[in-house]
């Protein structure tokens, strides 16, 4: 019985856009949030947004700021495009999406410059490049254009978190092993370093982009080994 009901629900979902009865965090909506974290991660599974993942993950703090910026742009962009989805002429939809994203990014850029100027300088061109982040355009095009506002919002949040946790994981290893710090605080004791008579030395390779690529690769490896859904035939 429950099966039939669920199927009916799904069928309705395809036909009718708005479903007043559906709870805010129904199973399907939760899936929108959870899926991008693992099974459908924008970085490790769809392999989008790689360039920023390589460029700004040397330190945790810039990675965090970047993640928050992307979270804002993604969520707001999805909501705005979803609100306008019935009025956007199909032929110019990409331009409209670009305008929306570009204005949001300009906003983020100004806020960063006003409040965290140092990080803004460090992120430099990569803030502007959020406009071309494939994850954002991809979600607008694939999801927000065809779904209700609330669902688009959840999808934006979910994908941004999926992006963020990979970014932070990569930055964690790169900063810890490359600089011996986390968020700028020294983790490896001074006495451990070879210069002070210890045995340890920071791994300079971790600061270079190739190692970011390899770190992302290792995360993909671990994920695919653990998640049987992702194993390809």
């Amino acid at each position, binding site marked *: 019985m429950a099966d039939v009901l669920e199927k009916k629900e799904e069928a309705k979902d395809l036909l009718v856009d708005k479903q007043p009865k559906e709870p805010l965090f129904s199973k399907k909506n939760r899936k929108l949030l959870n899926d991008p974290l693992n099974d459908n991660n924008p970085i490790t599974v769809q392999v989008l947004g790689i360039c920023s993942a390589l460029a700004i993950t040397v330190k945790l703090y810039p990675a965090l700021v970047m993640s928050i910026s992307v979270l804002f742009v993604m969520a707001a962009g999805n909501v705005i495009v979803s609100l306008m989805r019935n009025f956007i002429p199909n032929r110019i939809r990409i331009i409209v999406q670009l305008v929306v994203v570009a204005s949001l990014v300009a906003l983020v850029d100004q806020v960063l410059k006003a409040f965290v100027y140092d990080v803004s300088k460090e992120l430099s061109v990569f803030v502007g490049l959020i406009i071309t982040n494939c994850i954002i355009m991809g979600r607008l095009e694939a999801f927000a254009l065809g779904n209700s506002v609330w669902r688009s919002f959840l999808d934006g949040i979910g994908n941004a978190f999926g992006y963020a946790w990979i970014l932070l994981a990569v930055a964690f290893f790169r900063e810890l092993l490359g600089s011996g710090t986390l968020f700028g605080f020294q983790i490896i004791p001074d006495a451990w370093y*070879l210069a002070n008579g210890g*045995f340890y*030395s920071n*791994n*300079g*390779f*971790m600061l*270079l982009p190739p190692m970011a690529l*390899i770190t992302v690769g290792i995360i993909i*490896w671990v994920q695919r080994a653990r998640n049987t859904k992702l194993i390809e035939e």
Partner: protein
Amino acid sequence: MKALHQFIDSNVHPLFKEGSKLEKYWPVYDGFYTFLFTPGHTADGKAHVRDGVDLKRTMNTVITALIPTLLFGMWNVGYHHFNAIGIDATFFEQFLFGAIKVIPMVVVSYGVGLGIEFLFCVIKGHQIEEGYLVSGMLIPLIMPVDLPLWMLALSVAFAVIIGKEVFGGTGMNIFNPALLARAFAFFAYPTYMSGDKVWINTTGTEGMMAVDGFSGATALGEYATTGVSQYSALDAFIGIIPGSVGETSVIAIMLGAGLLLFTGIASWRIMLSAVVGGVVMGLIFNAVAPFALSAEQQAFMAVPFWQQLVMGGFAFGVVYMATDPVSGSQTDTGKYVYGFLIGFLSIMIRVFNPAYPEGVMLAILFMNTMAPLVDHYVIQANIKKREQRLALKTATA
């Protein structure tokens, strides 16, 4: 030996065979077994026997070819150590000192590398491959003697896991694993891999540097920074210059090269064309030296081309690394192109970029990437040639 063989066959074998308790560790057992004895299995299809050499014998030959460089490297480490602190030492003392420094490097390299390899084989249920036997010997030979052992271990782990196992193990790697280990250490710990502090071991001798004009830089390092070197070409040829453990002596390397060429294990095409490539680049530099931008660079460019060939890791890289049958070009014509570009780029990188005096490593890794491309064009050219011949034949017929 026969008794041991029988003992293993009747007592140890049943422990590991299919269905028994230790079945999971069959790869480990099999690896050791075939290392000691000729495998008992025979071909069950139609076999084309061309040579009795299998992968283990090939690897053992290369290791044998490496022994002269290893022994010379041990002595050289000791020689420079006692030279630097100004103590007269006998030949035996020098050798002993070097052996004490170098043998732990070899042990760590094999221990870590084979450990990881065994682990992967047990997890995946593969047969243990012999590929690491050579890499494990090459890695300590291309590292500076003062490199901390844990850095060596980390580089080995990186090379085996990222360089080899992720691609599917021995024979599937796109880069030479030993060079990957060196590249990792070079970029991760540059202060321990280059400069003038790492090539000569002076630990425990602070305050004893009584020797005038002592400099720990390699011949190449001196040329790259000042344009002159205290070491002559003959020094470099014999090998009494500072450098990575096994790379210094061209004589020892030539002994190894002789064995590799005699047994046909290394490709003479690659070796020959790499030397030609180095000579050509050296001659070009000699010709354009008057137009160099700085005095140091001019002096470095003016170094005679034959001296470029005996300095640094050029000879070692060309003989033992460029000829790696897995990561190099496979076609005969491709081997000429591949080798030539390795020699050419090595000399170019070492002269143009003083930050990377060891151009050989980067040149070989770069050409590893390009090898399939070279092969592709060679094969396409061959196909085109044969198509034309066919067209000609049908036209005349």
